[in-house]
Structures are given as C-alpha cells and as structure tokens.
C-alpha cells in the first residue's frame, strides 16, 4: 500500500457556505438542507482527490485545503 491518502480540511471559522466547492466537486462537498457544508468522503477516494483540490482552490474564503490523511 503505497498510495498516498488525503482528506479535506475545512477552516470552519472561515467557511461562509457559498457552495462554490460543491459546484466544482459535488462528490466531495455538499451543503445540507441547513446550508451547512458536509464533507462526503474521509479520506478522499483517490479518483476524487483532484476534483477536491479544484473545489478547495475555488473557495472565495480560502477555507478548504487538501491534506494528507493521518492513518
């Protein structure tokens, strides 16, 4: 098992629930019925890491980042 594993880290103090991340990566980010952000994968599926990064980079508040998952 050599594949690096990643997860989404959210700075909850900064998140304003714009939802730009969900538009970019709906398999990873979702705003629930109360418009609170939920992370749907932890750790991220390897095939969704790139989309998760795109979603994080699109956050106007720079509240999301992709970090190595601690085993």
């Amino acid at each position, binding site marked *: 098992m050599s594949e690096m594993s990643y997860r989404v880290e959210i700075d909850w103090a900064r998140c304003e629930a714009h*939802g730009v991340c969900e538009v970019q990566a709906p398999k990873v980010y979702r705003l629930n019925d109360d*418009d609170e952000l939920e992370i749907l994968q932890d750790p991220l599926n390897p095939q969704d890491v790139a989309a998760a990064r795109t979603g994080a*980079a699109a956050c106007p508040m720079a509240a999301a980042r992709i970090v190595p998952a601690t085993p």
Partner: protein
Amino acid sequence: MRRIVIAGGSVAAATAAGRLRARGFEGGIAILSAESSAPYTRVPLSKSVVTGETSVDELELHLAEDVEFHHSSPAIAIELGRRVVRTTVDEHPFDGLVIAAGARARRLAPRGVSGERVLRDQGDAVTLAKDAAFATTAVIVGAGFLGMELASTLTRLGVQVTLVDFTPPLERLLGPWLAQTMWTRASECGARFVRAARTVELVSDPVAAVRVDDRYLEADIIVTAAGDVPNTEWLSSGDLAPWVTPVGLEVDGCARVPGADCVTAAGDITAVGRGADARRRPHWTNAVEQAQAAADALLDPAGVAPYRPCPYVWTEQWGLAAKFSGALPFTGDVESLLPEDARPGEHEFLLRWPGQGIAAINHRISLPRFQRLAEMDTSNAL
C-alpha cells in the same frame, strides 16, 4: 500536449492548473505570476484584511500537485512561432498557454503623484489597514461593490467615510430597488454620499483632497475604487495584438483566443465576444469557470463547448450579506419570495425580478440551491 504555461497567478491561474490535473494531464505545468506570493483570494481584502482580523497568510489558494510556481515573474511577451512566453526573468516554452494576467486598479491621479490609495492586492490592503489606524476621515471615489465594501469596513473601524460617484451608490450595478436597500443601511451606519455632476479629480501631491464639481473634500485617506483595467499592454504589440481591445483580451465562449489554437485566456483580463459585443465578466465565479473551460479547450480541442457563465455575484457590507444571480441590474417590478411583503430598507429577504434574476439578502442559501431557484425563474419566465 506536454507542457502548459499559465501566465498569471491568481484564482484563474490556480483553477486552470487544478483542472488540468483533475482531468489527468500529466505533463508539466508552470505558473508565471507577477506577484511575490503564492496565489491567494482577494475576496477578504476589502473586509477582514483591512480590519486586521485576517492576515494575508490565511488567504493562500493551494495549488494542485506538481505545479511549478514562479513568483515575481510577470510575462512580458509571447512568441507564437517559437511557442515561448518571456518573463522579466527568463523564458518558458509551451505547447498550450492560458493567459490569466488579471487586471489592476484604475487610478485617477496622474502617474508619479503619491497618496492615492487603491485596493487590488495584498499590499494595498495592508497599507489601508495601517492608514486606518491613524485616520478619522476617508473619501472613497467610486460607490460600486468595492467602494461600498471598503466604506463599510472603514466605518466599522471608526473612520467617517464619504463616498463620491456620478450615480447613486450601487445603482448602476444592482438597479434602484436593491441599491436603495443597501444605501439605506449604509447611511444608518453613518456613511455619507456626494453625487458628482461633472467633475471628480484628485488634488495635490501627495493627494490631499477630492474636487467634486466646485467642492473640495479633504480627508486623511483618499481611495479610488473606480473599477479595474485589464493587464493587456504586454500583448498589444505581439502576435495576439489583433485580439487586444480597451475592454480586454478577446476570447470566444470556450475561453480560446481566436487565431491561435494553443492559446486560451481566463479571468479579469478577458472580454468574451468580438468588437462592440465583447463583455468583461470580472467576477470570482467567472474566473473559476472560464479557467476550467480554458484547461478543457487545451486538453480536448475537438470536444469543447461554450461554458455557461454562472451569473452569480455577492457582496458583504453594512452587516448585509447579499447574493445575486441573473442579468443585473434588476429593474421594474419585484416579487418577494420571503417575506411576502418586503420593502426597501428591510434586512432579510429573498426576491425575484421575473425574467431577470433573484437576490438574497441575509438569507442563508447555498450557491447550488440559489442557482436552481434562479434557473427555475428564468425558465418559467420564458
């Protein structure tokens, strides 16, 4: 396609790089940025950075893996024949190119005159934060989104702010109903507005006052928030000169620069369309979506389709978090979705202008849901 160069270093550049990797591109990606720091979000600059609540280190937009980032390396020329981009430092060969060199703040003072503040990059925000600590008065020329956000922030810091513009604050952008709502709140918070009829100019060096027609407004801080200017000068004498206009670098609906199949562009430097029809879309969501379209067009030239711009903009000021989707400005009759009888000056509602778009003020609604609502409305109106 082995090596893609991205000329620019903000959200459009970071997004293009991310999209290339997300679509499985394994070649080289180099970002050539004019700025001295990694890509960052400008959104908080006019708000929590000026107040000091957020430090500039917290704004970084994290790049995809294996992306070369060259800071302080503005692109200065493109040679399409050799397929290289030259910077002030060196040159970079490319198979595909994304031009995302952005825009800069428009200035009113003549070149060489000091003391005029603007707000575009991290350094501008830090300077204004320092100014605000010692200031009691400010004049902001330009009462659009940026001018009003900054006015709100400075007011919170105890500075008496006067805004100057030729039309009522936000009215050209939002239409009369929403503009009146926002301004009612601003004036309750203590903001003042001076409407210019003929002339607005900055006076002395360093700038110490603003002349508005026959009046002189003196202030400790004088800020110009009168829009931005696309950074196209470096392209205006090269191979892409035919596509450079005062509006911006012209691209088609797929973010391609016409006449050069390996060149795309995204973000604030671009104008979508040709000639008199070319329009800028200088907003966050467009930078993101257009950058993705640019990456897609490079990787799959045969499969491209015009991206559908998400007409979403938002602003936060005077304690109001306002979101808009549609063809701003909204004019004519408004329908209130929540509450049933909203009036200008109230502070929480969801509204629609049939066939034009929707607005939410202090109403928590995520972008996906907001967009679904907006699309439902436009399709109903057809």
